């Protein structure tokens, strides 16, 4: 069995999770402070990829990144770099698709934060950076980690937008999900089934991890 699809899926999911970790937390943090109207609008925009079909996300991404579309064409001309059909093109797709998961969970965690802790820190002369990383983040840690794990799992299984933006090239852009589809399409049932098992195993581990974190979280609150 050629393990490239798993490796590729893992690196795509890993990189997009890191991006989404920072982007989602930033968005969650600043949106809580935005004026109400702006808050409503941004919240809809940030959550939209969660409910849109992944193919629609893929289509929209292609409209921007495609080699004949304005941004894609510009990058191609200036850097000689094609943004689609590369293994890393899938990062664009997974990042957009999993962003709402991270953003939503981080926002939920931040909303449960006792703002008086931040106020107390600031009146004591602690910098805003210290308050954020040493007080707010540890307080919200479990929620944020759960969001990150969920995002990572979703990125591993992303199919629709990924297949549209980087297709299926064995050994180049193949991911677990696109491989399963390709194998099923070409009647290689045995191999397809093995990949399905791999996928189920990874997802089960991830869900176990989330449940474990949530239990730990509850115990922490009850203390």
């Amino acid at each position, binding site marked *: 069995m050629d393990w490239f699809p798993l490796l590729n899926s893992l690196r795509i999911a890993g990189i997009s999770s890191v991006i989404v970790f920072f982007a989602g937390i930033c968005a969650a943090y600043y949106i809580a402070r935005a004026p109400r109207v702006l808050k409503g609008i941004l919240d809809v925009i940030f959550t939209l990829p969660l409910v849109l079909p992944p193919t629609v996300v893929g289509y929209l991404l292609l409209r921007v990144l495609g080699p004949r579309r304005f941004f894609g064409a510009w990058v191609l001309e200036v850097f000689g770099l094609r943004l689609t059909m590369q293994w890393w093109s899938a990062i664009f797709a997974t990042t957009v698709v999993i962003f709402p998961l991270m953003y939503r969970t981080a926002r939920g965690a931040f909303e449960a934060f006792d703002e*008086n802790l931040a*106020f*107390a820190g*600031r009146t*004591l*002369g602690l*910098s805003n950076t210290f308050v954020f990383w040493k007080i707010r983040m*540890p307080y919200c840690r479990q929620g944020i980690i759960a969001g990150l794990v969920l995002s990572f799992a979703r990125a591993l299984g992303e199919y629709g937008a990924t297949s549209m933006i980087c297709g299926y090239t064995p050994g180049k852009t193949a991911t677990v999900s696109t491989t399963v589809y390709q194998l099923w399409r070409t009647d290689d049932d045995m191999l397809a089934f093995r990949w399905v098992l791999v996928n189920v195993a990874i997802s089960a581990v991830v869900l176990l991890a989330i449940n474990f974190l949530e239990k730990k979280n509850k115990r922490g609150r009850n*203390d």
Partner: protein
Amino acid sequence: MALYVDIKKKLGSFRLDVQFEAGNEPISLLGASGCGKSMTLKCIAGIETPDRGRIVLDDRVLFDSEKRINIPPQERRTGYLFQHGALFPNMNVLKNVMCGVRRKCSGAEKEKIAREMLDRMKLGGCEKLMPSMLSGGQQQRAALARILVNEPEILMLDEPFSALDSHLRFELERVLSEVIRDLGKTAILVSHNRDEAFRITDKLAIMNNGRIDVYGGKKEVFADPLTRNAAAMTGCKNIADAVITPDGRARIDEWGITLRIPNTNKHADCVGVRMHDIHPGPGENEYIFTVADVVENPFSYTVMLSAGREYRAIGMELEKPVWEKIRADKVQVNIPPEAVLLLTKQALKGYNGNK
């Protein structure tokens, strides 16, 4: 004056409009919840920004909307004690206090300062505990230790007792009084409890709906609360609308009585009578009332008296043996005219911040 505050802030339909001054002394902001007490403290601490106004602390301008000065909370040096202490739950007690040490020094020295302050707050031995393992009173003392090592220029206590059981309140109250006295700086206690406000501080500011109604020495405010709200906040339970007649009496239709009142030309549209100022037996303003209800308190009775079915009852507080001797369906009582509080529904202009 150590502290000068003149701020305005709009929040939806609520308007905060507060002016007061305070010396190096403890004062209380007394008021019902939602009247803007905490908001006022937060504006002084810099956590909230007023729309307009000026805040000066010991010649340092903390906020001035005209000169566009708004010092960040980190540099204001305001010691803010929250309702629940606001200890950082992810750090042990010692680390929490060390976070507050203002002096620039090595970690070991910070630890020494923090340990000393914890000992002073009688928390020696609790250094390595997490805040969630402390009792409410210990949490507040740890929070106080964290504030004191921060060397604040003003203390602000935002309902510090409200999360505590009553037997712990008194203990923390003693600690706080001592800290306030030792620090010798302005201290503002926000409270809705008249007793603790009276015990801890010298001056009272009574807030109502975003404004300070009455501000003065605590004894004067209790003796003559001036407004209906202030009378209620100082614990006066019998308050009713009244019409002052030309011959200097107060006609109170709600109670069905007309009271002789102190000789004064003060404007008033309501009156208040404290429950302990109604005495059984004959005297001035003497009436025979029907006993509508008797409520037993731990050490006294509250006897509800009414001039008739159609009138609202007023409460009289009597010591247990006194009432047990009387026990009747009708009682004769008297209300000394000088005990009748003359009040207005609206705060009078000009009294605000009188001293």
